[in-house]
């Protein structure tokens, strides 16, 4: 306890982790790199209890109770002591983050019916950290409702002091490769559609039985992510063929949780993106061929040595004296220009799979669904988050375009395989 008091007294500040450093510069008045985690419980949410639970868990997450400040060379995070608030949910989640709104916190907590949702700015953490935060918050909420919920899995104990490992920049700890590999990816195909108005997004979730889906992937001898990526490639290849014209590569971007590769307990960003590419100029691909191709491409990339080379190269950019000692406004200018030109050019879709959200049995029985949703893309209608809790696998598209034909082709492919799919959406 004394350790915790010491931590609270200290004026806290954090430097941004290696992955987070570019996110503030990417921020525009209409778009921010953020994500949503949402949990559906078995009871209606009481906002007053939720707020009290939020206040109780915040000391456990010192790197989340922060505001972002501009330094001369870099942005940094400083302890935020403004009051916390919870909001009724909205139809357009993940609207842009403004550093001076919401009590200067970089996450927003929402409630709606029996659902608790957290919209989290990517500067703070990645999907894993967001899921841990939401699970801890939901467990504390249920405790305050009279349930006995132990800590375990993604749900941390709010009374335990935060460990230094949880707030570390794991990129720095893990980068040790002598080879620095910067990825060079070509320009990919993008589905052309009508954009939605600013600050709005179409969210479509497909809920499947994890057991049934897992059986399907086992039959094909692939993982859930590999199957979903191959299916997305197949949908986009078909769509490109229908569009006509010259064919471009179709690529699916897949973030990978580096905690599973390097270990560690960090609650900040620790992911890196892999890319699965198919060149349609080489001929037609059957779905089984796409599955094989995806499987081998991903397994070749998803090794400790490959990731180490990539994160070492990323870290080397940050440590370059020209970058390091360039004033922040200059860095922001070049990052924003680069992002405006090259954003999403290399990928046609994004699939981010949170995996199975491990919860203690006492908490899991109160949880009906867990939804994970990345920020909508500027060029891609297909950006989907996947999360599994109990037997419920939820695939969520966040689409900033009006048309829903990619979602339709994707979900009806499961129906054709004999799987039951339930659709929930914020569309009218």
């Amino acid at each position, binding site marked *: 306890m004394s350790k915790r008091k010491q931590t609270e007294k200290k004026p806290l500040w954090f430097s941004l982790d290696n992955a987070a450093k570019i996110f503030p510069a990417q921020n525009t008045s209409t778009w921010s790199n953020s994500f949503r985690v949402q949990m559906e419980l078995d009871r209606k949410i009481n906002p007053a209890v939720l707020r009290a639970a939020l206040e109780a868990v915040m000391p456990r997450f010192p790197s989340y109770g922060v505001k972002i400040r501009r330094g001369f060379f870099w942005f940094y995070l400083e302890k935020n002591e403004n009051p916390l608030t919870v909001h009724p949910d909205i139809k357009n989640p993940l609207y842009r983050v403004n550093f001076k709104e919401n009590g200067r916190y970089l996450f927003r907590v929402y409630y709606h019916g029996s659902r608790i949702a957290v919209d989290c700015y990517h500067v703070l953490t990645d999907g894993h950290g967001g899921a841990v935060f939401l699970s801890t918050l939901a467990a504390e909420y249920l405790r305050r409702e009279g349930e006995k919920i132990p800590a375990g899995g993604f749900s941390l104990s709010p009374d335990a002091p935060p460990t230094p490992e949880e707030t570390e920049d794991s990129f720095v700890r893990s980068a040790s490769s002598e080879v620095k590999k910067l990825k060079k990816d070509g*320009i990919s195909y993008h589905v052309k559609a009508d954009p939605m108005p600013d600050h709005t997004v179409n969210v479509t979730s497909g809920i499947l039985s994890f057991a049934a889906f897992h059986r399907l992937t086992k039959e094909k001898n692939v993982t859930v992510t590999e199957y979903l990526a191959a299916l997305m490639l197949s949908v986009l290849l078909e769509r490109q063929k229908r569009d006509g014209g010259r064919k471009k590569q179709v690529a699916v971007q897949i973030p990978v949780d580096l905690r599973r590769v390097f270990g560690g307990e960090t609650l900040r960003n620790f992911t890196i993106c892999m890319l699965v590419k198919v060149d349609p100029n080489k001929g037609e691909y059957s779905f089984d061929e796409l599955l094989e191709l995806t499987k081998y491409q991903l397994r070749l990339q998803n090794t400790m040595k490959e990731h180490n080379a990539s994160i070492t190269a990323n870290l080397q950019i940050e440590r370059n004296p020209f970058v390091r000692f360039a004033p922040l406004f200059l860095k922001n200018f070049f990052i924003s220009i680069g992002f405006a030109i090259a954003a999403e050019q290399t990928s046609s879709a994004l699939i981010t799979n949170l995996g199975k959200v491990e919860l203690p049995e006492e908490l899991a029985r109160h949880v009906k669904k867990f939804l994970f949703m990345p920020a909508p893309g500027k060029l891609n209608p297909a950006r989907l988050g996947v999360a599994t809790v109990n037997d419920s696998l939820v695939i969520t598209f966040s689409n900033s375009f009006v048309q829903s034909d990619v979602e339709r082709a994707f979900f*009806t492919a499961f129906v054709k395989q004999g799987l039951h799919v*339930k659709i929930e959406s*914020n*569309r009218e």
Partner: protein
Amino acid sequence: MSYCVHCGVELDRTAKTCALCGTPVLDPSAGPPPDPDEADRPFSDQLLIPKQVMKKRFAAAVISVVLLIPNIVLLFVNLFFLNRTFWSVYVFSSTLLCWTFFVFPFFFRKAKPYLYWCLDTVSALLYAYVFWLMRSNAPRTVQAVFSVILLVSLAALVFILWYRRKKHSKTGIAIHVFADLTVVSLLAGLSAAQLLDKPDFFVIGVICSLCFAALFVFFVYCHKSRHMRAYLDKYFNV
């Protein structure tokens, strides 16, 4: 529990249409479904459009003040220190021209193209007039500049009238712009050559006009040819 007859997916019980294909949910045996409780819906119905961080009009006002300050300082310096010629009028007229072109439009919520066109033409003519007043030994040059400004202004008016008629593709806009520029550069070269008695200007006008005409032909080809569009899409992502 309802299913979409086209997609085969189960729909949320509060859904009025299939989110994937838009097919309406109908139950012929029942009357119109009662409006479900907001909390039962999977997503809220409340749309929150965030406030604009920096209002355009505020930004325009700040820029106006920032532009005004050096002008006042220079006027003061001109009147009391370096007062051999009235040179600060050049600075002031240049600032006014830039302000009319780039800052003034931000004072309006909705674009007012005819007002902008009118003011831009007047300010450009005034700018030329200032030079004529200050250097009255070259009236024919000013006449040539006036004629070029009026030609460009006329072309801009034609473009605005055409653009506001219906929605146009980017290539369509480029075609129209280059067609306008082809004609304007030819006429401007001709009028400058006539007024200044310098045939070189006509040659320059013709060269510019040919360049714009080449771009015009290129964009027309891009617009018409499916292969060219696909090529540009593949290699330049346009």
